[in-house]
């Protein structure tokens, strides 16, 4: 029990003294996850509209498939990305393995289905009258899309925040494709994994506390949005 309290106490010292390593790792985690989140948003908004506003055969199955991939294990995606981007793999020529860029790609692959699925269900949960009215008033297809997305914007933001939460908290993918290189691809979760295995509990705890605080903030934001 003393170990736990000492660990927590030293963890707070590390955080409050803005320990260089802790800040650096946290900054990197945020940068990588936010970039991947941004990439996913760019893919997701147009794609979700295209899927929602068009009728095509197999649409139901496509949506089920997207929803199934919510729970894809991060390590499986990590392995997939590794095989594709490793020098011996089809995209090996890019030389992206074990860089922050490949972590962004991997995380974007991981969270795009989540955002896509949630955005589509947000769109279908929206008031049909709105898009019908828009169309009746002579709006083009694009305008109708924009209006409908605007109506469900809070649900869309929720989807984005959920995606970010999944990106920043995953460890399997980052370990496999990033390699947990000190000062380069080490993020909060991979550092916790390594330091715990080394028996260095304090740094792990400090990072764990920071990650929990980030998760808490995410939830706070989500609650605020959902109250609107």
């Amino acid at each position: 029990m003393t170990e736990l309290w000492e660990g927590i106490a030293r963890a707070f010292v590390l955080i409050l003294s803005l320990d260089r390593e802790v800040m650096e790792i946290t900054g990197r985690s945020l940068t990588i996850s936010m970039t991947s989140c941004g990439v996913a948003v760019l893919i997701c908004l147009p794609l979700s509209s295209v899927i929602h506003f068009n009728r095509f055969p197999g649409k139901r199955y496509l949506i089920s498939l997207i929803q199934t991939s919510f729970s894809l294990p991060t390590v499986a995606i990590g392995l997939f990305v590794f095989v594709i981007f490793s020098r011996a793999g089809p995209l090996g020529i890019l030389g992206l393995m074990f860089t922050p860029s490949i972590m962004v790609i991997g995380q974007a692959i991981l969270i795009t289905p989540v955002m896509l699925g949630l955005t589509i269900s947000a769109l279908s949960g929206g008031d049909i009258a709105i898009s019908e009215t828009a169309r009746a008033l002579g709006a083009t297809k694009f305008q109708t899309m924009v209006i409908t997305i605007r109506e469900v914007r809070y649900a869309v933001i929720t989807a984005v925040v959920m995606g970010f939460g999944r990106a920043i908290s995953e460890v399997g993918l980052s370990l496999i494709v990033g390699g947990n290189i000190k000062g380069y691809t080490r993020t909060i979760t991979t550092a916790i994994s390594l330091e715990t295995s080394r028996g260095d509990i304090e740094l792990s705890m400090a990072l764990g506390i920071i990650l929990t605080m980030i998760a808490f903030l995410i939830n706070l934001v989500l609650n605020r949005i959902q109250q609107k």
Partner: protein
Amino acid sequence: MKTDGRKWLIRLLTGIFVILLFPAGTGGMQETGEGSSGEKLLKPVMRIRVATTTSLYDTGLWGYLEPMFEENYGVELDVLYAGTGIALEYGRRGDVDVITVHSKSRELEFVERGYGVERVPFAYNYFVIAGPGDDPAGIKGKTAEEAFRALATGGNGLFVSRGDDSGTHGKEKAIWKSAGLPEIANSKKNSDTAGWLVEAGRGMGPTLLMADEKKAYTLCDIGTFLSYKGKISLVPLVQKGEILLNVYSAIAVSPEKYPRVKHDMARNLIEFLTSPRIQELIGNYGTGQYGEPLFTPCAGTEHVDQRQPRVKTP
């Protein structure tokens, strides 16, 4: 109507970007302030990548040598820690420029198949069989083979195997074979080993912590063992015999196989490891902290030291 919708979309996208970029920017600034990753993402700094066995990483040796190499050659050295099996696989796939591993037969095979240029031994130490202080299986003072036989047949005590295809795991297998129990080395899951052999499937450090947690026996290189000494209560029980020799070598990944590997810098790294100055530092590494060196340098030769290992049993 039309302009309204467009405007709104633009506003939404700008909003998202501002939200995304603001903390990302501050995170980046913190890093550039310290001259690290944020800056490196923008500036083309040459990076060289080495995959190392976990024992050289968990002892902190790479962390110690890395800044010296980076300063000497003005490059960024990326150190990936993995078991020898994975490190060799990274090498075979061309994902790293150099590997530092410890499994002679597999290293030779790696070079022979054309994946590596040359096997360059640079340091060695010994393995120990560590276990709980009360030694329920009574292996203390025995040879490695006798100790493994006692663990397999005695029914007292648990053995934690690395089980991750690493160099240490390879050494476990070699000892099982040498002890006349090849079936334990070969079997994946065996009812014979049920109840007394556990596969950790992780690096040396975590395996050691697991063995300590379970009050079990495990095979560990002396370097990692000493660097974990304060954190665990296991003691070294068997440290005799040539079979426990543990040689680390560096191999540059073949530029013929993978033209994109940074072979010149890889050669620099191997020269650096085998240079007299660094060899001396490797030989002294850990003396201050653990009271004895963790490695014996051996550049240029595969020098087998016939002396007994210097580890004192507490």
